[in-house]
């Protein structure tokens, strides 16, 4: 078990290196820093000096991977690759275009992101699984059919609609909660309720349908027939037998996103003006702040890989066949 986890951890290293190389290639090789500078400065202000100044300000004036001018180890370290990509492994993301330290910024924004993403995730999981169990309990009846149709309809609605519609209805028509903004402490609750509800609502359709499929597949298994042949009521069959087994495929799909909850939700955060990582990312994209985007890509992959690892572990815990072998 421990060896297994260590092996998975070791396996993560080449993947992170791969991500790093990929982003490096995307950001510095496909386009040279000169191109970026030209674009950022705008057509009118492009002069060689301006470009040079822009690059120096951001530390993009070094050679890409090999600094022939430097001496000793500096041939490797005094390069864009080293200063911009390798140092990410140490958690050093450099500065954003507005001069702020990206690592610091990320640290302070994770809290709000999590405050909204975590409740959404937990509540969404709970609601969708209960809903799916309900449909499965009444499978092959009109209720089931109507439920599935409702799910399909709900997942056909754009996520943007849920947000815009929800904001309009709850905040503008009913004046129940503030439309956007964020506060610390207990105050946060009144800002969070709406985005969480909307987040849960928007995800119900597809996840309920997915869980329902899993449950239905599980319910045709032989052991379910055995359980019924014992005389167990359908409710017990569903909760004790089907749900436990279905948790295994559900876990594989769900656990992987848990670490990524830190990343926040791009749309929700930007619509509701929550100062989390999601809105940070969107702002960076809109402002074309390459340093921030690059950092978020890196953090995102680290979290995803952590999610994979967590999946493996939870899977092992949930399934005795894996745990005990």
């Amino acid at each position: 078990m421990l060896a297994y986890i260590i092996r998975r951890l070791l396996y993560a290293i080449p993947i992170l290196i791969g991500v790093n190389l990929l982003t490096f290639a995307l950001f510095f090789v496909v386009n040279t820093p000169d191109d970026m500078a030209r674009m950022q400065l705008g057509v009118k202000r492009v002069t060689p000096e301006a470009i040079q100044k822009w690059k120096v300000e951001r530390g993009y004036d070094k050679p890409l991977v090999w600094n022939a001018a430097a001496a000793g180890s500096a041939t490797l370290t005094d390069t864009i690759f080293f200063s911009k990509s390798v140092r990410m492994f140490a958690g050093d993301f450099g500065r954003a275009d507005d001069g702020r330290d990206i690592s610091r910024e990320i640290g302070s924004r994770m809290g709000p992101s999590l405050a909204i993403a975590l409740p959404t995730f937990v509540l969404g999981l709970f609601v969708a699984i209960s809903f799916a169990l309900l449909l499965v309990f009444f499978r092959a009846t009109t209720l089931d059919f109507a439920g599935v149709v409702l799910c399909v309809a709900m997942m056909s609605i754009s996520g943007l609609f849920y947000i815009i519609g929800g904001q309009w209805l709850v905040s503008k028509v009913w004046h129940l909660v503030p439309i956007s903004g964020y506060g610390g402490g207990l105050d946060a609750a009144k800002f969070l309720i709406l985005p969480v509800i909307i987040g849960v609502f928007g995800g119900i359709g597809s996840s309920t349908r997915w869980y329902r499929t899993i449950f239905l597949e599980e319910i045709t298994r032989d052991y379910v027939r055995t359980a019924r042949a014992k005389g167990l009521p359908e409710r017990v069959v569903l909760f004790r037998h089907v749900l436990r087994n279905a948790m295994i495929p559900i876990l594989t799909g769900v656990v992987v996103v848990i670490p990524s909850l830190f990343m926040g939700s791009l749309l929700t955060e930007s619509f509701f003006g929550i100062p989390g990582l999601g809105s940070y990312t969107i702002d960076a994209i809109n402002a074309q702040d390459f340093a921030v985007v690059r950092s978020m890509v890196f953090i995102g992959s680290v979290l995803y890989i952590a999610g994979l690892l967590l999946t493996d572990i939870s899977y092992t815990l949930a399934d005795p066949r894996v745990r005990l072998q």
Partner: protein
Amino acid sequence: MSIQPVLLWSDVLLFVLMASIGGLSLWARRQDALRAAWARVARNPVAMSAATVLAAFVLIGLLDSVHYRARLPAQPGAETRYSVEVNSALDAVLADLRQRAEKTYSAPLATHLFAKEALENSAQREFPRLKFGGAHLGADLAAHEFDIAVRVSRGCAAGMLLWLLMASLWCRLADLELIATLKQLREGNQGSGAGNPATGAVFVTLLGILLLLGIAISLGGGYHVFGTDKVGQDVLYLSLKSIRTGLLIGTLTTLVMLPLAVLLGILAGYVGGWVDDLIQYLYTTLSSIPGVLLIAAAVLMMQVIIDTHPDWFATSAERADARLLALCLILGMTSWTGVARLLRGETLKLRELEFVQAAQAFGVGRFAIMRRHILPNLMHIVLIALVMDFSGLVLAEAVLSYVGVGVDPSTISFGTMINTARMELAREPMVWWSLVAAFAFMFALVLAANLFADAVRDAFDPRSSA
């Protein structure tokens, strides 16, 4: 010649796609199992009415993909010149809608602008009359509502007539009694044991579409059915134009990704060893980057390229088209991993099946086995992935365009429509119509696609027969 045909890259790909779908369906006709599965889809009323709606959307999309440049009025002596503006067949059909732009916002079916303006030679601020919307009423504004009712009923009648025409044509072809068939339709289509149970659904859907079409045409002759946007463009026109973008993103992306996913998935699963390790590494790495961020990064970089090479594109339409294609490419590159993983798993199972071993016992080569034995048995998964992905991609376009990494801002799409409309929500009173129109069209398209995809999956996936 008064026009110069323009072939955008996306048009080419779209037509190639259509041709290959045609080719594939010819091939599938000869495959018993596939034909049986499609026959199941064809007998599913929900699927077929969804398919009818989809067909209507595709028709609009295809019309919008025949591009041309109109000839400019000939200058004596000068050689013929063509407008820099690239139009499509749809633009020509909708010329009225396109050209009758107002000054700014107006509500659906309105006769006046949405905001008061200072009129000429008057100190008062008033709602000015629209240039086109309701212009035929003249001073007789009291007749506004009556006129609308008349137009709606006229549209209904026309739609009904058209539908009856089509129905009788179909009955003639299928050798059926029109009246009897209609009666049967009204009685819920139960009795028609011999016929396809889905035929009725198709006709009912068709009736709905034709009625809407009739009403839209009849109303659109005198009003802006969905109002106008900030610069006075007809929202109905914008919505119709958005369809092509949605279709393109939904289909071309899959087209880009499929060959890669199929090739790598099968290779990884069948060959195994270091090839498998390498391919798995590749897709784990790619999928470990959060999708939106990877797309954002790639789109930003692509934007830099496009901006730094303005000389590559003759018209702005071409530039927008390039960006659209690049978006498909990027979406494709980031989304092949899921399908590849699925195919790899399935190949691993197939590889152990006895018919593959029988082929190995004959010394059939690896690639021949993959082509003859593995690939055909994966086609249903590929197909399911294709139809299931479509709706997700249409929705994703809206989100990406909202984030600012979607299509070119000058491309009309659901995403750009929503993005601009969102700003208008803050106005008091609210300008809601372009938002609602965009969402409604998108919902219809995605819902139809989802329902159709469900039916396809049920018909092709042996496991989901429940």
